[in-house]
């Protein structure tokens, strides 16, 4: 977390005079990226089957894994609400599942403080599988039952898409902490 405009990271590039990360940018980027990842993919195709991974959830997950504590534990509530408005799922399903996922990651972090790539990947993959199955069950609760094979392609695509989303979030994280000109 940033304390002020003069904070700098030890591993970052050498700070230049009159340049510092903007606290606004540092706070806004994660929230904005999750909201955009939720809304924008719905515009690109009129889908006749669940074919896209849940981009909003994947981005949320990636932020929580890359920077634990940057998005607060309650972030699933507002961000999930936005997702529910556009996702077509029964209202409240993302609020519930995103909050649960955030708490699950938080618990795992406490239990296994030193993680490596394998554990991170395993945690993310199992959460993605649980999330997609959970969404499937919740939408079946409200509508008539869809056959389970409908979500299988989506499961596979999501698992493969997650590392890419992780890379993208890492790029956004660097953007978040770019030094910008300080205006006084």
């Amino acid at each position, binding site marked *: *977390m940033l304390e002020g405009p003069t904070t700098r990271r030890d591993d970052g590039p050498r700070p230049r005079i009159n340049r510092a990360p903007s606290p606004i940018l540092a706070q806004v980027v994660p929230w904005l990226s999750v909201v955009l990842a939720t*809304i924008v993919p*719905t*515009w*690109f*195709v*009129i*889908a*006749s*089957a*669940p*074919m*896209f*991974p*849940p*981009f909003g959830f994947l981005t949320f997950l990636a932020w929580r894994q890359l920077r*634990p*504590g940057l998005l*607060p*534990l*309650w972030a*699933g*509530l507002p961000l*999930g609400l936005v997702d*529910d*408005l*556009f*996702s*077509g*799922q*029964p*209202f*409240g*399903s*993302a*609020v*519930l599942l*995103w*909050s*649960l996922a955030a*708490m699950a990651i*938080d618990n795992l*972090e*406490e239990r296994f*403080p030193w*993680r490596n790539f394998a554990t991170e990947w395993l945690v993310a993959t199992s959460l993605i599988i649980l999330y997609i199955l959970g*969404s*499937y069950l*919740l*939408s*079946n*609760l*409200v*509508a*008539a*039952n*869809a*056959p389970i*094979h*409908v979500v299988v392609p989506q499961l596979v695509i999501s698992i493969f898409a997650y590392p890419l989303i992780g890379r993208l979030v890492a790029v956004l994280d660097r953007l978040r902490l770019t030094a910008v000109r300080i205006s006084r």
Partner: protein
Amino acid sequence: MAPPASKRSGYSRRAQFSSFLSHTAGVVGVVIGLVLIVISAVNPSSFQSLRAIAADATDPAAEATAKGRSFGDNVLNSVTGFFKMGSRHAKLEKELAIAKSRLVEAEAIEAENARLKDMLKLTRTRKDVVAVATLTASTPSSTRRFATLGVGRNKGLEKGMPVRSARGLIGRVLEVGQTSARVLLITDTESLVPIRRTKDGVAGFAQGQGDGTLRVRLVNLGINPLKKGDVIVSSGAGGLYRPGTPMAVLTEILRDGAIARVISNPTDADYVLVERAWAPEAPPVEAPAEKP
């Protein structure tokens, strides 16, 4: 990476309190989610005004993207066409492949032309069309099948109006906002359309399965007369959907019905027509006696 040090609250009252508060907030999120789910399970249309506001707010951007999408579709069609041919004629020379991809492109444009001409004819001859619009968004990561239309109450849309493309039925209007409307596609599991076979009028119902196919069930039980390749159209039974709108082709015959593939893929439909909800004409009745 180790979790940030601030997570271990230690003896600091303030740190303990803020950690407690953030955990409580997480639980509150779960509880609120559960409450919302229960509300929407009891009454699925309970949050429609919120959804309509959200869809209205993002409508301009969605519509701009929809315009780009039809262009992107054309490009994508040409590209996939190229790859299909490439795999079939891997040994053919590059020029031939390029020529073929150009041909596919031309075909795609021709098909689009024909479709647009169809559409013009349709709008000219039909008086029951409320609006011609684009589908601007959909729900590609959910098992529910909804799409968003770029017009709403401002063009006189109402709940229940059927939506079709020049090729066939797409769905019906479910929720109406000011400048956008939500469409329940016929492939959604909640959509149930009365149908008949074109040849002889064998009647049944088609329910969506959420994966682009329909599950056809017949009204009369007994020997299943359906054949692979049969075309089904809406029968108009019970009103709402205009009779004779093309819907799907049967691809797989089951014991008590069939699986059908939808003819009008909403992704290919650049423009869709919103029609007035159809009502069967009332049988002729004699004028009431008390009226002069």
